[in-house]
C-alpha cells in the first residue's frame, strides 16, 4: 500500500509550483511596491490604500458587485420556475431537457457572447423587434443592461441545473404528508418544497455570482469599453500597464469580497436550516 501512496508525491510538488506558488506571488506583489527586487523588498499597504482612496476605482468595484448581484437575482427568479417545471416533467423529457440545457454551456462562452453582439446591435434583431413594439430603436450595446442580459444568458443554465438536481432528490412522500395534513399546494410549496431546494439555490448562486463578479470579457465585448468592471481594471494592470503590484492588490480585494459574500450566503442558508429544524 505504501507503494501506491508514493503516487501522490509528484502531484503534490506540481500543485505547490502551479497552484500555491502563484497565489503566494499575488500576496507578495500586493503587499510590496514597484522595483521587483526581492532583495530590497519592503512590505507596504500602499496598493490597498491607493484603491480605497481612489473614487474612480471604488465606483468600478461598486458597479461590479451591483451587476453581479442583479445578474444572480435574475438568474434565481427565472431559473427557479424553470427547474421546478423541469422536475415535474416525465422522465424521458427530463433527460432531454437536461441535455438541451447543458449543451449551450459546452459551447465556448466567447462564441455565445459574440452571438449577442450581432443581435443586440442597433438595427439588429432585438432593435427591430422593439421597433415593431413601439419601444425602440434603442441603443443596447454599451449599456449596463445589455451586459447584465448577456451575463444572465451565460450563467442561467448553471442555476437551473443546480436547483433542478436538488429538486429531483426530494422525497415526494413529504408532499403527500403535507397534503394529508391539510396543506394546499401553495402552502406545501413554500413550507416543504422551497426550503428543501435551498441548498441547490445556494450552490447555483455560487456558480453565478463568482464568474459574474470577476468577468471582463462580457463587459468588454457587450459593454464596448463603456462598462468597466474590476476584471477590466485587472486586465489593464497586467496586460497594458504591467503594474503587477496594483493589479495583485485589486485582485486580492476582489477575491476577499467574493469569499466574504459566499461565506455570508452559506451562513444564511445554515441559519435558516436551523430555524426549519426548530419549527
Amino acid at each position, binding site marked *: 500500500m505504501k507503494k*501506491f*501512496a*508514493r*503516487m*501522490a508525491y*509528484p*502531484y*503534490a510538488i*506540481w500543485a505547490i*509550483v*502551479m*497552484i*500555491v*506558488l*502563484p497565489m503566494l*506571488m*499575488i500576496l507578495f*506583489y500586493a503587499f510590496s511596491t514597484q522595483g521587483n527586487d526581492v532583495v530590497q523588498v519592503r512590505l507596504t499597504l500602499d496598493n490597498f490604500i491607493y484603491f480605497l482612496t481612489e473614487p474612480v476605482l471604488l465606483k468600478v468595484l461598486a458597479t461590479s458587485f451591483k451587476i453581479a448581484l442583479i445578474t444572480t437575482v435574475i438568474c434565481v427568479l427565472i431559473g427557479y*420556475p*424553470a427547474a421546478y*417545471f423541469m422536475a*415535474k416533467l416525465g422522465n424521458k423529457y427530463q433527460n432531454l*431537457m437536461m*441535455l*438541451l440545457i447543458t*449543451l*449551450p454551456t*459546452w*459551447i*465556448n*462562452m*466567447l*462564441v*455565445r457572447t459574440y*452571438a449577442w*453582439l*450581432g*443581435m443586440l*446591435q442597433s*438595427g*439588429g434583431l432585438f432593435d*427591430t423587434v422593439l421597433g415593431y413594439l413601439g419601444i425602440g430603436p434603442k441603443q443596447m450595446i454599451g449599456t449596463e443592461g445589455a451586459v447584465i442580459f448577456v451575463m444572465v*444568458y451565460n450563467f*442561467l443554465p448553471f442555476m*437551473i441545473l443546480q436547483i433542478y438536481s436538488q429538486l429531483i432528490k426530494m422525497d415526494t412522500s413529504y408532499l403527500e404528508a403535507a397534503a394529508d395534513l391539510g396543506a394546499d399546494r401553495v402552502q406545501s410549496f413554500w413550507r416543504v418544497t422551497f426550503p428543501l431546494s435551498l441548498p441547490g439555490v445556494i450552490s447555483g448562486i455560487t456558480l453565478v455570482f*463568482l*464568474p459574474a*463578479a*470577476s468577468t*471582463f*470579457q462580457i463587459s*468588454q*465585448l457587450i459593454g464596448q469599453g463603456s462598462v468597466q468592471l474590476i476584471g477590466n481594471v485587472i486586465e489593464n494592470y*497586467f496586460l497594458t500597464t504591467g503594474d*503587477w503590484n496594483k*493589479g*495583485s492588490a485589486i*485582485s486580492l480585494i*476582489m477575491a476577499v469580497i*467574493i469569499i466574504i459574500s459566499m461565506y455570508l450566503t452559506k451562513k444564511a442558508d445554515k441559519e435558516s436550516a436551523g430555524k426549519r429544524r426548530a419549527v
Partner: protein
Amino acid sequence: MKKIFSKFYLALILIFFYLPILYTIIFSFNDSRSLTVFKGFSLQWYERMFNDRNMMQAIWYTFVIAILATIISTIVGTIASIGLSKSRKALQLAIEQVNNLSVMNPEIVTAIGLLMLFSSFRVIEKGFLTLLLAHIAFCIPYVMLSVSPKLRSLDPNLAEAALDLGATPWQALTKVIVPQILPGIVSGALIAFTMSIDDFVISYFVTGNGVSNISILVYSMSKRINPSINAVSTLVIIIITVVLILVNIVPMLRKKKEVA
C-alpha cells in the same frame, strides 16, 4: 392549464438559449458583411476562414491543447487520486484544500498568478507550452474531484486481496482499481476537455508569441465586425454538439446491446 403554462415557460427558456446559437449559424452563411440583415446564402465566410492562417492556427491550437491537456491531466489526476487514497490523512486534506482553491478561485486570479509565475521564472517562453501547462494545471483538480469519490466508495481491501492473490502492484492497479473507477475517470476527462476548449481568461493571460486559441481569436477580432467569426463559431458549435451527442448516445446504445 397549468401544464400548458409550464411547457410554454420551458419552451421560452430553450428559445432564449438557442436563439443566439441559431443566429450565429444562419449569419455564417450570409452574403453580406452585415450582422443584422440576411442578404442571401453564401459560403464566402467559410472560404475566408479556411484561407486565414491565424484562424486555422487558432482552431488547430484549441483542439491540440484540449486533447493533450485532457490526456495528461486525466492520467496525472488519476494517478494522484489513487496515491492520495492510500496516503496519510494530512496530505489528503492538504491537497484537497489546494485543489479546492484552484477550482473556487475566480479564473482571473488563477490567470494572473500563472502569468506572474511564467514571466518571473523564465524557464519557458510564453506561448504554446505555457498555454498547455496552464490548461493541465486547471484541469487536474477537476479530474481528481471526479475520480476521488469513486475511490472512496471502493472497498479498500480490494487492492490488498489482488496483491495477496499474487498480482503485481501494476496488475492490481490496472486490472482491479482502474476498471472499478473508470466511470469517474471518463467523466473527469470529459470535464477536462470541455474546460480546456471553453477557456478564455487563463489562456488570454498566459499566452504569448502570437499563439492564440479560438476564444482569444474571437475576443481580439470582435473589436471590428468580422463575419468569419460566425463561421468559426459554427464550426465549434457543430463539433461540440457532435461530441456531446456521441458521449450521450454511445453508452445508451451499448446498454441496449447488452440487454439484447
